[in-house]
């Protein structure tokens, strides 16, 4: 402190000059719009890249939170959207009216995080962090915004085991533009590649067409993307066509998933058992 005072005493003339100069210049710049504009233009040139970098860094740090927020927002949207999936047909004498059935919801969507997954087995499984206590049932579909991921086969209290699409038992009813085309399944040879089997000769599929889940499934609601057609092969034994496709979801990069629970699946299964 004493040294500071000594320093000030020694250079008081220069220090006072500096203080007064800076103060008067600041006052002038602060009160002149033109100078203020130029001053901020110069200061922006220096501070903008720094601000931009810090903003990007902060944004990057908060990405996890934002992702989670979006994830839950998507779930709400799926749930709301699903209320309008079921269409009730009310017939008049001459005209049929199609009215959205909001009184009953067929599917419920639940958020889940992927915990573990196998990729290089002949039968691949994954585990998600939602179980019975969250309302998950066996034979519920699991998908991501990009496409389907698999089907739940076993449910514990807090976790569920999922057969991913790279499992030979996972067979999903596929459609193009709401028209059923066949059964989509893993080709058992290459990761992320599958095939559609039992495609009737009457059905025309083009390369690069996107295939979706069809209406004929209790696992998934219709319209969830499965993959893109890559090649056509003929199946002479069964007199049907067979198409190769690439799954849209790359299993390596999955973290957030959505689970579809068909609310009437028990009732539908009883019907199947009595056939």
């Amino acid at each position, binding site marked *: 402190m004493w040294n500071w005072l000594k320093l000030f005493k020694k250079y*008081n*003339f220069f220090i*006072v*000059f500096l203080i*007064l*100069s800076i*103060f*008067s*210049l*600041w*006052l*002038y*710049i*602060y*009160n*002149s719009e*033109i*100078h203020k504009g*130029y001053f901020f233009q110069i200061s922006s040139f220096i501070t903008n890249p720094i601000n931009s970098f810090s903003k990007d860094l902060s944004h990057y740090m908060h990405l996890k939170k934002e992702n989670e927020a979006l994830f839950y927002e998507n779930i709400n949207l799926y749930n709301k959207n699903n209320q309008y999936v079921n269409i009730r047909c009310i017939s008049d004498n001459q005209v049929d009216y199609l009215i959205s059935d909001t009184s009953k919801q067929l599917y419920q969507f639940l958020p889940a995080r992927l915990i573990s997954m196998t990729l290089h087995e002949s039968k691949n499984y994954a585990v998600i962090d939602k179980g019975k206590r969250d309302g998950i049932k066996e034979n519920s579909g699991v998908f991501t915004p990009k496409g389907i991921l698999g089907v739940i086969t076993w449910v514990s209290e807090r976790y569920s085991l999922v057969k991913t699409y790279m499992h030979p038992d996972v067979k999903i009813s596929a459609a193009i533009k709401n028209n059923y085309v066949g059964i989509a399944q893993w080709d058992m040879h290459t990761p992320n590649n599958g095939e559609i089997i039992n495609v009737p000769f009457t059905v025309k599929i083009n390369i690069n067409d996107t295939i979706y889940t069809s209406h004929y499934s209790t696992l998934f609601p219709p319209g969830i993307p499965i993959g893109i057609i890559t090649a056509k092969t003929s199946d002479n034994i069964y007199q049907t066509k067979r198409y190769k496709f690439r799954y849209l979801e790359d299993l390596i990069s999955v973290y957030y998933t959505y689970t579809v629970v068909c609310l009437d699946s028990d009732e539908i299964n009883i019907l199947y058992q009595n056939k």
Partner: protein
Amino acid sequence: MSTFKKTLFAFLIFFIQILILDHLPLSWGIQINLFIYIFLCLIPFNYNKTLLLLIGFAIGMLRDLFTFTYGLYAFASTLLMFLQYYYFRLPQFNKYRKADKLLYANSDLLGWPGFLLYITIFTIIFSFTTAIIEYFTTWMYLRLLFIIKEIFFSILFICIAELIRSLLFHKEAIGRASE
């Protein structure tokens, strides 16, 4: 020249500056900076140097208040007082350093050639400083003619003020010389 008369004369100069010269449409709006005469010539240069800085700042700020250029003249005036200190530290002014009384940088002390040189140097510095700060958004060469006119008229008016001062207080100067 008593302190009261000096103060009165300084006030007169200042009022001429803010009431007349700052509103005079002379030579397409050039600024005549007569008021620098107050702190360059009417205030003793061998006074407390820090106090001189503050006086320069205060006078400049006072003019700023009337011209709505907050800080412009305050900065230029402070700079002049800062440089004035080093100007009188030059070897040719060594004789003034040992003086035990307050000295005023006027024509009586410096002589007319010395006074003109002193005023010219400081008017040039003042005019260019204000011009650079005020018009740094435009090219200086566009303003150069205006600045030269400004310097010329400022020196002219300061010389007139100094003439009036020396005429008004002629007796005092003679009295002091005879002492």
